[in-house]
């Protein structure tokens, strides 16, 4: 299908909005837009970071998910207590496939669900005693933990427990870091506020712990911030940062440790991958410790090259040469990948709907493969995310903020992309509609997708999904009218 014009896209939005009652329609209209690269300020065309409409099916998470699941969860040598009823924690333990090394249950704990399992009596009488008991118990059972964080679920805020006091007391008793995090799910409009709260907790309870202590530093110390090591992403990035001569002293928070977080203020440059979830702490370190930060993009060779040169610009000629050396080294490998997959993927159209940074960062990787992103949107972005996105997207493509289940389905039906990239909640809807789908949160149990090694896997996965013979078998033989359609991808 050919690309829609601006007018067609606009009328598509209007048509889709038709089903809503007047008030909901007015509100949702503000979250949908046709991209116009001429616009400097996204807020002129799209509203974001607002409360979802009651009654629609939103795909957002809660503040607790942003803190426990995203920011704190992957810190592997700490134990994160899901403080409250059992369910919230059960669905956020290691579910994002944040890979790490270590012996789970002995010195690393990211995949285990620790919860205070609130019952009626805890709601009535308060859970502070229970929390204190849990911390003591954890210390006995898992003595190799380096610290504990208390992640509050909704009821904690509602009944007004004083987790700060309990944490302070417990920290003295066990002589370790105990971080109370006030990330109750009802705070804010999406997981985004949870990221912010988690960052603030790191700032207040962790970051300054080693101030004034000795640290053997080099002029090339950097950190990877906001890479959650999904399917090994951070490893795939770290490998060539080190190859170009930098020393990565901390990974936040995928495969990260408490010690790494505490050492971060000693870095020379903070490399920020997910801007949305960790810009807060980077800003703080810039102000307090004078550490500059920059946002980078390691999806696809074009963007990697750009980013490596921008990173190198912060350092001396050694690193600049290193960057060129790395770029040159991987060039043949990248060319081979593109030569292999581009002919099979050229011209295919993709619609995305993901979280923090991917709706804009992966565009470059798709373009390297000759594909085109025709629609993109964020679950929990703010205006500054859309500011950045507008420039990356083509004119007259579709932008959707906090899209509802209904809208996304309708958009896909009309735009008929060749591939949809979103999360598990969307996956089966679109697959049943006969549209190739990749999960772009968890890389569909594959990965890594970052870096040079990741791009090769990314290209293979896209090809594997798009050109899978199953898409030609959607119509049962007895319903096929004329000659059977050719299965183009049998190769």
């Amino acid at each position, binding site marked *: 299908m050919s690309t829609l014009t601006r007018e067609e896209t606009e009328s598509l939005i209007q048509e889709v909005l038709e089903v809503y009652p007047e008030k909901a329609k007015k509100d949702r209209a503000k979250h949908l837009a046709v991209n116009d690269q001429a616009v400097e*300020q996204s807020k002129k065309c799209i509203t974001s*970071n607002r409360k979802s409409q009651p009654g629609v099916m939103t795909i957002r998470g809660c503040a607790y998910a942003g803190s426990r699941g995203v920011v704190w969860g992957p810190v592997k040598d700490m134990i994160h207590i899901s403080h409250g009823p059992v369910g919230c924690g059960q669905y956020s333990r290691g579910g994002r496939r944040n890979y790490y090394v270590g012996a789970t249950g002995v010195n690393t704990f990211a995949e285990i669900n620790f919860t205070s399992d609130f019952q009626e009596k805890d709601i009535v009488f308060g859970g502070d005693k229970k929390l204190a008991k849990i911390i003591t118990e954890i210390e006995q059972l898992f003595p190799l933990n380096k610290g504990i964080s208390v992640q509050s679920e909704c009821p904690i805020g509602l009944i007004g427990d004083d987790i700060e006091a309990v944490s302070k007391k417990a920290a003295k008793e066990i002589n370790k870091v105990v971080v109370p995090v006030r990330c109750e799910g009802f705070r804010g409009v999406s997981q*985004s506020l949870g990221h*912010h709260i988690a960052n603030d907790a790191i700032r207040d309870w962790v970051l300054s712990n080693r101030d004034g202590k000795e640290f053997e530093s080099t002029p090339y110390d950097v950190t990877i911030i906001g890479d959650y090591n999904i399917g090994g992403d951070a490893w795939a990035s770290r490998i060539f940062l080190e190859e170009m001569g930098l020393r990565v002293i901390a990974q936040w928070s995928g495969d990260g440790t408490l010690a790494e977080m505490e050492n971060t203020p000693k870095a020379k440059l903070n490399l920020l991958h997910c801007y949305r979830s960790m810009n807060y702490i980077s*800003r703080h370190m*810039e*102000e307090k410790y004078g550490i500059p930060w*920059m946002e980078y993009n390691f999806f696809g060779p074009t963007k990697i090259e750009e980013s490596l040169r921008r990173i190198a610009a912060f350092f001396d000629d050694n690193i600049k040469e290193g960057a060129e050396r790395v770029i040159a080294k991987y060039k043949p490998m990248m060319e081979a990948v593109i030569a292999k997959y581009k002919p099979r993927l050229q011209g295919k159209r993709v619609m995305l709907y993901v979280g923090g940074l991917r709706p804009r960062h992966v565009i470059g990787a798709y373009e390297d493969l000759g594909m085109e992103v025709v629609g993109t949107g964020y679950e929990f972005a*703010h205006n*500054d995310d859309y500011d950045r996105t507008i420039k990356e997207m083509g004119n007259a493509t579709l932008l959707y903020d906090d899209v509802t289940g209904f809208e996304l389905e309708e958009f896909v039906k009309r735009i008929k992309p060749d591939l949809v990239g979103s999360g598990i909640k969307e996956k089966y809807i679109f697959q049943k509609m006969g549209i190739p789908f990749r999960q772009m949160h968890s890389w569909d149990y594959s990965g890594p997708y970052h870096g040079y090694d990741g791009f090769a896997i990314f290209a293979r996965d896209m090809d594997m999904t798009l050109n899978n013979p199953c898409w030609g078998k959607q119509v049962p033989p007895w319903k096929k009218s004329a000659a059977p359609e050719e299965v183009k991808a049998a190769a």
Partner: protein
Amino acid sequence: MANIMIRKTASGGLSFYLPKRDLEDNIVSIEFDQADKWGGELKLANGGTYYVDPLDAPPKLPVSLRAKRVDAPE
């Protein structure tokens, strides 16, 4: 009054950040930008205006300050 943070952008301008509302925007004009006086009214790209008490010297950026909202859209 709210805490804000001002930092230099990559392109050399100033950017304004209001953590409480996660508002990030470029500063288009600042009332006083002299060696002995810095601050006053900040005009943002989104049309809003904030006021910070003028400082005696330009601060080292980034800097956290207290600001008053004079006028903000939305």
